[in-house]
């Protein structure tokens, strides 16, 4: 009994010594709970404010201006653009520049006076469920008779008629599946390449490779090319399942979809490669990959709406490839956007690839010192 206890303590002691010496694991013991708590706190915010909105006011009436001002005062929306027509509003929605469009028709005053039907329209990007829910509170806004607070409700129909776009049935599969393509690609692509270089190092193959005439960029490119193909296969699989099983629409062109997918795959491969040059063992590569994966899932807008997050979280999220790809996917799949219309989110992916690839090449030395 005593001997057994002694042996257990010996193992405990050895384990603690090893843990203290493994700086990465030890860092994760401290880092992961802190990071998770902060990220979840940031990301999970169902009380959505500051949705980006555009206004097309064709009535030019004072009451319409009051209505828009009240909508802004509610903090649910921030008006970022004024456009002349309903078509222009829809265009902004499709590009993902705004998620709410406020349309005030020419006959706004007449409709308001008549009552019985809504005087204005809210065009909403229905590809994000929580945006839809937040916008509904706007629809309840009363119309004013005067500019002085407090507003007095005019009896009759609500001011806004709700027009959810792109997912009128509000099916959650339609909202989730496009993001899942990005999530799956992020996880597998990063992991594959994260172990790519370090596996050679662990198995002793690197000593052979660095004595050959292979140049560092050649090695890096050669490492990621096969995974580009794998990425496209995975994209096809998730897309096929989403489309056949969950009836997720593909409103844009397949060409745009695959081109965007390719750029995204390349960006995540760059991240994996960078991880691979930073770690010493495959296990560390796994750890670091999952550490990088967590904030991407939480902050990308895949699980929680981007607009609901505080500014610092949004800035961090803008760095991640997944954030941009989720937007691109929703744009192309659900809103029928073209690649040109979502190019705003394409450039950051390319930039991300260039930076991670560049750093990987710089970090990797064809030397052992």
């Amino acid at each position, binding site marked *: 009994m005593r001997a057994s206890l002694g042996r257990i303590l010996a193992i405990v002691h050895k384990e603690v010594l090893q843990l203290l010496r493994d700086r990465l694991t030890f860092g994760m013991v401290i880092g992961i709970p802190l990071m998770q708590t902060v990220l979840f706190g940031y990301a999970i915010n169902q009380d959505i404010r500051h949705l980006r909105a555009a206004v097309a006011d064709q009535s030019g009436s004072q009451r319409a201006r009051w209505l828009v001002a009240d909508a802004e005062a509610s903090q649910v929306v921030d008006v970022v653009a004024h456009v002349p027509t309903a078509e222009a509003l829809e265009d902004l929605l499709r590009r993902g520049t705004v998620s709410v469009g406020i349309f005030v028709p020419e006959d706004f005053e007449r409709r308001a006076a008549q009552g019985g039907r809504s005087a204005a329209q809210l065009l909403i990007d229905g590809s994000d469920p929580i945006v839809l829910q937040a916008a509904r509170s706007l629809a309840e806004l009363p119309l004013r008779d005067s500019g002085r607070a407090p507003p007095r409700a005019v009896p009759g129909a609500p001011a806004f008629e709700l027009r959810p776009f792109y997912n009128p049935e509000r099916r959650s599969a339609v909202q989730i599946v496009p993001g899942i393509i990005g999530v799956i690609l992020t996880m597998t692509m990063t992991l594959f390449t994260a172990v790519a270089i370090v596996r050679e190092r662990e*198995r*002793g*193959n*690197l*000593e*052979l*490779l*660095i*004595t*050959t*005439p*292979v140049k560092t960029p050649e090695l890096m490119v050669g490492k990621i090319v096969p995974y580009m193909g794998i990425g496209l296969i995975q994209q096809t699989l998730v897309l096929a399942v989403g489309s056949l099983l969950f009836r997720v629409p593909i409103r844009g062109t397949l060409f745009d979809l695959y081109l965007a997918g390719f750029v995204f795959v390349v960006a995540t491969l760059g991240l994996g490669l960078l991880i691979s040059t930073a770690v010493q063992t495959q296990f560390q590569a796994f750890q670091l990959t999952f550490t990088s994966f967590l904030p991407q899932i939480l902050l990308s807008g895949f699980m929680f709406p981007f607009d609901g997050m505080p500014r610092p979280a949004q800035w961090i999220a803008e760095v991640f490839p997944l954030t941009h790809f989720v937007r691109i996917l929703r744009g192309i799949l659900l809103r029928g956007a073209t690649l040109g219309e979502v190019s705003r989110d394409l450039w950051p992916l390319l930039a991300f690839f260039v930076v991670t690839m560049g750093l990987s090449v710089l970090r990797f030395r*064809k*030397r*052992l*010192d």
Partner: protein
Amino acid sequence: MSETLAIGARETLAIEAHGLTRHFGDVVAVDHVDLAIPRARIHGFLGPNGSGKTTTIRMLCGLLTPSSGDARVLGHRVPAEAESLRLEIGYMTQRFSLYDDLTIRENLDFVAEVHSLARADRRERVEALLAEYRLAPRASQRAGTLSGGQRQRLALAASLVHRPQLLFLDEPTSAVDPQSRREFWESLFRLVDQGTTILVSTHYMDEAERCHGLSILHEGTLVAHGTPRELTAAIEATVLEIEAEEVRAARAALDGLPEVLSVAQLGTRLHALVDLDARDPEALLRDALAAAGIAAQVERARPSLEDVFVAATRGRTT
């Protein structure tokens, strides 16, 4: 006149190094090593583990940057011109560094492709190497399932794919049976006949014996160099062989003598290295053994490389 002579000398040297030094933190792994290794020879680095053999080889390949000193390998300065040097050298690492999950042929093909061999040449070269190193029957077997000797032949073949002029072999025979070792050395001599220079590190005396030239390394410093014959001739000690019934007692009796540099047991015999200054070493040992009441025969012996190694590394340990 002297100018042309110097250039001529340089061209016959495959490796030239002056004051080659490498630190790892506070540890000096290689300490001011000078080398002059002629072409078309097998040169051996002899030394125990941790003596700096691998570090020196890595510096000469351009894989490690020397902390100080400089080296020219096949006329290229290292590590500055390491990239161009890589086309002309082969390196067989101490640890098997080919791909376990590729077959023999796939491994050789890969190395050939990485070295940009033309397609036709590549096929011919790989076939030739498969035949030369008796790998052809197993060409489609994965490297991970090979025996030590087979792996070693594959590694040698792979390091030769691009027809290097200079071959670095880092303890190539450490996981190999004696029969395979003998065959391995025969293939090395065939390569030397074709003009290849070989630098091989080892801690086996019998392998060191086969080298044209030797450098004995000890704790990072070069303690002796020359041909095996020169080294045994120039040994700075008298070698005596003692045959006794009670070998361990005899050893104990000799160990304390100030003139005795070292005593090593070889089965029922002892090899004692005695200071050259001792006037009559045989008598000295006989007297010491007699005083301890041990019956023994003492004779002069031809120094072996091991004796040279012991004599060269003795007294530098502390």
